[in-house]
């Protein structure tokens, strides 16, 4: 019993917060602004609790497994959710069903915690569904908007379809080996054609969830249709969680098939980076722009994963941490503009610097970090990803990745140029930024600057391997 509580601490805390939020619906209800303060405090406590008493161990006959690295991964996701609760304060205060939104969001977070900890394909599937289905409901949260329901429809159908493919793959693996446990499987994986077929099905499902090209088609539409808070959750937290478990499955379970999946990852990584970059060039809507840029970022994560070494795992965890800060900052600025003025096009941002220098600087910092320009942390994240990928001595692959970095500079700088340099007779007026949003943006900016300069962040993650 004691072990149960100490090992499942992150999940139990999230469950507790969900129950607290359910109880706020009783009686007359609470005002949005005070409820949002309560949620922010609870999520901060959840994040702080992630630093203490992390033990290693398994529960439920190996179905649930945790150690210090997994605790760090969970804490990165908690940090992301805390930042979301700060950054989107404008939209949260306006929405009618704030506590429902956070109940759904935290259910998805709970699913992701179980997902990272799963030690068995049954647990893996159940938690993946728990992490996906509430997000589909969150995508439809702008009930009166046409594009919101269209995006949610695309999301739920493609995710249901991808879980069908995932299950077919798992059933073939079960037929070939007779087990679904992550610890028993590696000894039984022999890379026979039947097992490779099963792996291809599994890989397809992962590609759907991480929006790897050619399974990315739902991404941009869902991102554009959903409210900004959902979009940022989808693009940062849910992608990070799937990347973490993807590494576990590849490095632990399918290690004997390493030659098979290395080629698949390399090929998909190249086309993901190229497609993401080329489509991001022509986007006008900021959400679609960030969607395609996040597809390109997933291509870089795949470069790190292809390293197949402890450095590969370290660099991906480190990159996701930085990605949380930089992408959430970009989404935070875009959401503040969107909920105050309703403008979401990049061309509307012309001359934004004249009226809102603070927001412009945060956006510029975030985009510099996403593009990977040296003083920011994004540079170090990309550097370690490419370094881990280069361990296989496949230099053509690394060269293509590095060239894609240069292409991505163009479209990130295009946004910055239109904010700083382009003249505009009627720029967006002065926006009053909420206090909590401002605080969240400062946190993101501090993360972008310091996570790169302080080398102990990377060293600490590496020491947990």
């Amino acid at each position, binding site marked *: 019993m004691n072990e149960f509580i100490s090992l499942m601490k992150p999940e139990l805390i999230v469950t507790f917060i969900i129950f607290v939020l359910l109880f706020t619906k009783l009686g007359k209800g609470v005002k949005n602004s005070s409820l949002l303060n309560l949620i922010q405090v609870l999520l901060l406590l959840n994040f702080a609790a992630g630093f203490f008493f992390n033990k290693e161990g398994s529960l439920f006959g190996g179905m649930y497994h945790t150690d210090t690295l997994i605790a760090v991964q969970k804490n990165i996701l908690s940090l992301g959710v805390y930042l979301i609760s700060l950054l989107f304060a404008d939209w949260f205060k306006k929405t009618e069903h704030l506590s429902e939104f956070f109940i759904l969001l935290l259910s998805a977070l709970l699913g992701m915690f179980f997902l990272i900890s799963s030690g068995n394909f049954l647990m893996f599937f159940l938690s993946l569904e728990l992490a996906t289905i509430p997000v*589909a409901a969150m995508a439809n949260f702008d009930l009166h908007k046409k594009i919101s329901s269209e995006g949610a429809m695309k999301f739920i159908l493609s995710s*249901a*379809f991808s879980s069908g493919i995932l299950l077919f793959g*798992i*059933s073939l693996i*079960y*037929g070939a080996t007779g087990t679904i446990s992550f610890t028993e499987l590696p000894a039984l994986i022999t890379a026979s054609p039947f097992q490779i077929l099963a792996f291809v099905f599994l890989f397809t499902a992962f590609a759907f969830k991480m929006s790897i090209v050619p399974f990315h088609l739902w991404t*941009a539409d869902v991102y554009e249709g959903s409210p900004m808070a959902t979009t940022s959750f989808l693009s940062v937290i849910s992608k990070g969680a799937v990347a973490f478990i993807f590494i576990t499955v590849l490095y632990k379970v399918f290690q004997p098939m390493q030659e098979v999946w290395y080629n698949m990852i390399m090929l998909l990584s190249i086309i993901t980076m190229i497609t993401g970059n080329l489509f991001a060039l022509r986007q006008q809507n900021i959400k679609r722009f960030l969607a395609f840029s996040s597809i390109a970022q997933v291509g870089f994560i795949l470069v790190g994963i292809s390293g197949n070494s402890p450095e590969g795992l370290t660099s991906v965890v480190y990159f996701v941490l930085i990605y949380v800060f930089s992408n959430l900052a970009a989404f935070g600025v875009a959401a503040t503009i969107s909920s105050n003025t309703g403008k979401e096009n990049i061309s509307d941002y012309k001359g934004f610097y004249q009226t809102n220098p603070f927001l412009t600087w945060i956006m510029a910092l975030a985009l510099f970090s996403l593009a990977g320009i040296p003083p920011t942390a994004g540079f170090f994240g990309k550097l370690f990803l490419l370094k881990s990928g280069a361990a296989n001595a496949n230099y053509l692959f690394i060269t293509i990745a590095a060239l894609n970095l240069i292409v991505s500079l163009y479209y990130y700088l295009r946004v910055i140029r239109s904010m700083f340099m382009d003249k505009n007779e009627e720029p967006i007026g002065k926006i009053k930024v909420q206090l909590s949003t401002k605080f969240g943006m400062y946190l993101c900016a501090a993360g972008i600057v310091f996570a790169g300069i302080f080398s102990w962040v990377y060293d600490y993650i590496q020491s947990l391997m």
Partner: protein
Amino acid sequence: MLQPGLYHILFISTALFFIGVYGFFTRRNLITVLMSVELVLNSVNLNFIAFNKYLWADKLDGLFFTIFIIAIAAAEAAVAIAIIINLYRSHHSIDVERAEEMKF
């Protein structure tokens, strides 16, 4: 009398899977698309049961998996139908072709 073997059942389940995939890509009505997904999930159920009966009769993993798939499929269908109802309210149609505000 001839007993059905593992291959017969695998043939049916694989056929069912690809009928589901075909339906998912070609149907225009959202409810039918959802039904195609259910076909895919049910073909997986058949697979698990067949493997459990013919190959790994001493284990229970496959049977448990089937039960959970049925439960999850119901939850997924509930949310999907709620979304489709909302889509019907805003678009006055559940034709996939009508939901086309966002492209490329």
